[in-house]
């Protein structure tokens, strides 16, 4: 019997728990040459802002031990062009997709969310609450429960779409931040975004990123991400989407095991453009092997 791969995130039902992570999957269509993108649980597109954004000067990526730093600076085509040019093509391809959004102010977040609400084919809005370039004296929204609560509440009121709040791992207590999102009406939390890191060249004495610091992703961060997802799952009742260093079906299963309802695959797409489908097939094969009827029989079943 074919195991049931479908998962529910609140009101939303997904074919399967494997999604792409924002910023690592372009606008989704770029992967059409590699496989049928409608096979994924969902595609989360590159973070969208109100106006098109230039991004940071080069020196945007640095490889680190089993990871990479990026400081792309959210270069993107802006929400309008996404709505006009990209969304219809994703819908035509049969893909389930969510929009990751980002603003310099709470008002911008609201406005982007509002504009996206009119897109019938859009499955959800993922709020990037982990960006350091916002008001409030330069302190990231995402690093305090209060900031996350406020941002979540405002976006929640601006749209009828399911709202996923994407959390930063650069905090002392991820559980409280996740609870803040839940309390303010989030339908799900996604975690983790990147860890803030830095790289310098000891000879030239210069930072390797034009932005000096950047976000660390990839297998290096998986142990930290898994711990945070586990902690968040213990603290909230809304679904948790697990992200961070997932490269194989085994990695994805680990996040499901500690309680995640779904996963997102990021950096691994760069190494292997076909990886999301390989993970999907690997999960299915595992459920078969273990004679499990579906994800539900496995999720959160960590034996302590």
């Amino acid at each position, binding site marked *: 019997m074919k195991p049931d791969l479908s998962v529910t995130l609140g009101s939303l039902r997904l074919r399967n728990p494997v999604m792409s992570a924002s*910023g*690592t*999957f*372009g606008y989704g269509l*770029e*992967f059409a*040459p*590699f496989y049928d993108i409608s096979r994924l649980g969902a595609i989360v597109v*590159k973070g969208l802002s109100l106006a098109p954004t*230039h*991004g940071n*000067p*080069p020196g*945007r*990526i*640095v*490889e*680190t*031990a*089993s*990871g*990479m730093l*990026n400081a*792309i600076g959210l*270069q993107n085509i802006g929400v309008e062009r996404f709505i006009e040019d990209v969304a219809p093509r994703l819908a035509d391809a049969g893909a389930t997709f969510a929009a990751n959004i980002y603003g310099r102010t709470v008002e911008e977040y609201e406005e982007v969310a509002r504009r996206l609400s009119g897109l019938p084919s859009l499955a959800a809005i993922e709020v990037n609450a982990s960006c350091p370039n916002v008001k409030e004296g330069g302190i990231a929204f995402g690093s305090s429960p209060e900031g996350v609560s406020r941002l979540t509440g405002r976006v929640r009121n601006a749209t009828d779409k399911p709202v996923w709040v994407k959390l930063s791992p650069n905090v002392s207590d991820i559980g409280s931040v996740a609870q803040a999102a839940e309390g303010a009406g989030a339908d799900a939390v996604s975690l983790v975004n990147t860890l803030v890191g830095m790289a310098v060249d000891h000879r030239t004495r210069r930072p390797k990123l034009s932005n000096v610091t950047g976000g660390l992703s*990839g*297998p*290096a961060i998986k142990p930290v991400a898994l711990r945070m997802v586990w902690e968040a799952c213990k603290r909230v009742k809304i679904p948790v989407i697990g992200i961070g260093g997932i*490269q194989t079906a085994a990695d994805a299963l680990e996040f499901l095991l500690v309680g995640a309802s779904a996963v997102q695959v990021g*950096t691994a*797409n*760069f*190494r*292997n*453009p*076909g990886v999301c489908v390989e993970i999907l097939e690997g999960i299915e094969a595992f459920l078969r092997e273990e004679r499990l009827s579906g994800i539900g029989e496995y999720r959160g079943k960590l034996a302590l």
Partner: protein
Amino acid sequence: MPSSRMRTAEGRIVCNEGHGGIFYRLEAALPDPVGFVPGQFAMVSGWPGNDPLLPRPLAIFRSAAGPKGKGTVEFVYKVVGRGTALLSGLHPGAPLSLTLPLGRGFDLGKEGRLYWLVGGGVGFSSVFPAAAALARKRADFEMFLGSRTRDQLPPKEWTPGGTAPGRLHLCTEDGTAGFFGRVTDAVTERMGLLSASEASRLTILSCGPWEMLKELALGAANRGVEMQAALESHMACGFGVCWGCVVALREDEKTAYRRVCKEGPVFDAREVVW
């Protein structure tokens, strides 16, 4: 028929040998033949483990159809860091992961033009395939290759067939072979001898270090010569989804960051913010 559609492929190493001391030639067998435009590249990896994490971009040097519908692809590379050192340690029979062909290659389409192909260092890896394609089209071309010293010029046997000896200009900074000086000097000198109408018929196709390309681009702009430059950049994905590899281009009086892996690696030299 070799197909030029972008794909991932699990290759197997057929040959991976040092040549002339500093260049390696890596040949891999593929499930099917790959067509490519000179200047296009592949993302290559093959070492085990997650460190280094990212594949490395290498220009496609040659490709061929093999027996039973299979194919082969060749790369030429220089060991400069960890990834290329790991590549150089792989033995025949080892697997090689590839995504290819990627990016926008040289535009060789126009009729009746004169081409100067300029390669600095390992830049000949994109310039040779362009020369081979021009030779097949019986187009009019000359080739300038520069390096620091004689031993760092590409081995003779790699020079594409159809390159008339008088049309191949070697340049070494220490004078141990050919022109004594940098390849940019040789090209600029030769450009100086062109009439305006010759200059307007000329297209430079170039690949090499940033400083070399910059100098060439300025020289070409001065003489109104068209130039296409194959740029390098640190890449994470190679197929346009990470926005990590951008270079600043001048477009309609504004600058915009464009992806070297997607809108490039070959750019019109006049648009690049050098």
